[in-house]
C-alpha cells in the first residue's frame, strides 16, 4: 500500500516548550493509524503540527509526495486533509445545516453523496438540521464534527480523541461510524481508549515525550502486554 502521509524527524515548539522532539511516522493509504501514548506525550500536537496550527521548526511532513510543513493551515486543508479536533470545534451559533455547508467546499454530486452518506450514518444530525450547534449534546457535537470533516472529499482525516467525555453507548456509535468510514478514507486517530483504538486501528505508533518510540501492526500491540504496560500504563 502506498504511503500517503509521512513525518520525518518533526520537531515543534509551543512558546518556549519543546513539545515534539522527533516524530517520524508513515501513514498508509486506506488504513487507520492510531497514535497512542500517555497524556501530554504530544499526540494532539502531532495532529496540530500536520495541520499547520502549531508549525514545525524542524523535519519534513509529506502528503501525497508533496512537502506541506511550511504551508498555512487553510492550504493544508485544501490539499485534502480534514481535522476533527479534541474540543469538536462546533460553531455553536450556526445551525447543523450551516455547520455542514460551511465545511462543504462545493456542492458537487460527490459532496452531496457524502453528505447523504454521513446523514444516514448520524440520523440525529438530520433531526436537528435547523438547530444551532450549541444546543446539541456532547455526542451529537462529536458526530457533527466528524461529519464536517468527512463531508468533503478529504483523502485523510485526523481525528483527535473522538471518545473523550462521551457516554459508552455514544462511544460505540462513534466507533461504528469510524469503522464504516475506513473504507472510504485514510484515518489518523488519536485515542486514549485502547479498546476502541485496537478495534479500529490497523497500525499504531506510540508517542512518548514527544518522540515516536514504537510502531507496528495493531495485532502486535494487542498481544504485547509488556509494551502496553510500559508506554500506556495498561495491562
Amino acid at each position, binding site marked *: 500500500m502506498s504511503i500517503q502521509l509521512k513525518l520525518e524527524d518533526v520537531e515543534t515548539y509551543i512558546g518556549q516548550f519543546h513539545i515534539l522532539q522527533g516524530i517520524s511516522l508513515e501513514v498508509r493509504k486506506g488504513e487507520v493509524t492510531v497514535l497512542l501514548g500517555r497524556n501530554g506525550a504530544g499526540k494532539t500536537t502531532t495532529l496540530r503540527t500536520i495541520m499547520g496550527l502549531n508549525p514545525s521548526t524542524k523535519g519534513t511532513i509529506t502528503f501525497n509526495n508533496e512537502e506541506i510543513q511550511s504551508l*498555512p493551515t487553510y492550504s493544508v486543508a*485544501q490539499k485534502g486533509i480534514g481535522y476533527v479536533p479534541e474540543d469538536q470545534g462546533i460553531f455553536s451559533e450556526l445551525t447543523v445545516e450551516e455547520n455542514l455547508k460551511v465545511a462543504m467546499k462545493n456542492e458537487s454530486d460527490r459532496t452531496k453523496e457524502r453528505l447523504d452518506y454521513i446523514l444516514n450514518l448520524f440520523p440525529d444530525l438530520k433531526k436537528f438540521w435547523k438547530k444551532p450547534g450549541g444546543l446539541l449534546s456532547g455526542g451529537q457535537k462529536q458526530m457533527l464534527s466528524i461529519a464536517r470533516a468527512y463531508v468533503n472529499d478529504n483523502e485523510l482525516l485526523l481525528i483527535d480523541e473522538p471518545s473523550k467525555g462521551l457516554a459508552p453507548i455514544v462511544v460505540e456509535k462513534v466507533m461504528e461510524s469510524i469503522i464504516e468510514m475506513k473504507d472510504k478514507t485514510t484515518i489518523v486517530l488519536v485515542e486514549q481508549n485502547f479498546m476502541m483504538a485496537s478495534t479500529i486501528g490497523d497500525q499504531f505508533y506510540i508517542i512518548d515525550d514527544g518522540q515516536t518510540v514504537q510502531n507496528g501492526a495493531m495485532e502486535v500491540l494487542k498481544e504485547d502486554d509488556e509494551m502496553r504496560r510500559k508506554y500506556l500504563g495498561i495491562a
Partner: protein
Amino acid sequence: MRKVKSIFVQRKNIVYTFIAILLILFPFMNDSRSMMILFTQVFIFAIFAMSYDLLLGFTGIVSFGHAMFFGIGAYAVGIFMKQFEPTLPYFLLAVVITILITAIVSYVVGLLTLRLKSHFYAMLTLAFASLFLVLAEKWRTLTHGNDGFTFRTPELFRDRLDFYLICLVSMIVVFLLLNRFTNSPLGKVLQAIRENEQRTESLGYSVIQYKIIASVVSGVLAGFAGILYSVSLRFVNTSVFTMDITLDALLMTIIGGVGTLIGAIIGAGLIEFAHHWLTELAKVHWIFERWIIFFGIIYILVVMFFPRGIVGTVRNIKMKSKKRVIEKSEQQKAAG
C-alpha cells in the same frame, strides 16, 4: 417546526414592513421639523452602526478606528461640493471617490493589521484613525482644520423632507443588502470566523481574506454614512474623525444587540433619542447637560445584565421558550 419558523419569519417581515411604512408616512403626519431632522440622524447612524455590526457582530473584529471611514465620506463630499459645483453629478462623483478611497484604505489597513490579535488590531485601527484626524487638522488649505467649513448641497438634498426620505430608503436598502450578505455562504463563513478562527482555517478558509472582505464592505458603508451625515449638516469639521464617532457606533451596536443588524438600527434610535431628550432635560437640571455620564451608566448596565443587547436578549428568551416547547412535545411523544 419549519412551519412555525416560516410563520415567525413572515410575522417579522410584516412588522418590519409596517414600521417602514410608518416611517415613510411620519413626516406627512407630523410637521415637527426637529423630529424629522432627528429621525434623519437616526437613519444615518443606523447605517453607520450596521456597518460596524458587520465587523463586530458578524466577524468578531473590534475596531477603534471606524470613524476614519465615516470621516473620509464626510470630507470627500464636503470638499467636492466646496471645490466644484454643488450639483448631482459632482455629488455622485464624490460618492464614487468615497467608495474607492474607503475600499482602498480598509483593504490596506486590513492587510496590515488583521493578522494581529484582536486587541493589537483595535489599537492599530485607532492609530490609523488618529492619522486621518491629524491629516484633516493640518491640511488647512483643503480642510480648514478644526474649524471645518460649510458647503452647499445639490438641489435634491436641500428640502428636509426629500432628504429624510433619501436617508430612510438608504437605511432600508443597506439593511436588506447586509441581511442578504450575512445570510449568504460568505456571511456564514464570517460568522464561523467570529466563533472559532482556527477551526475555520482548518476547514480550508483563508481567514485573513475573509476578514478583509468584511472590513472593505464595512468601510465602504461607513463612508456612505459619513457622506449623508455631512450633507445633513452641510458642514464638516475634524469631529467626524474623532473616537467619539466610533464609540457611538460601538454603543449603538452593543445596546441594540450585536450580530443582529436590526439591533444596530434600534441602538441608533435609542442613542440619538436619548441624546436629544437628555439635552432637553438640561433646562430642568444641570446634570443632564452631562448626558454622556448617563450613556456610560447605560453602557455598563447593558454589558453587565444584557450582554447580547436588546434584540439578542429577546431572541434568547424566544429560543429558550421554543426549546422548552420542543422538550415538552418530545416528552409527551415518549410517554404516549
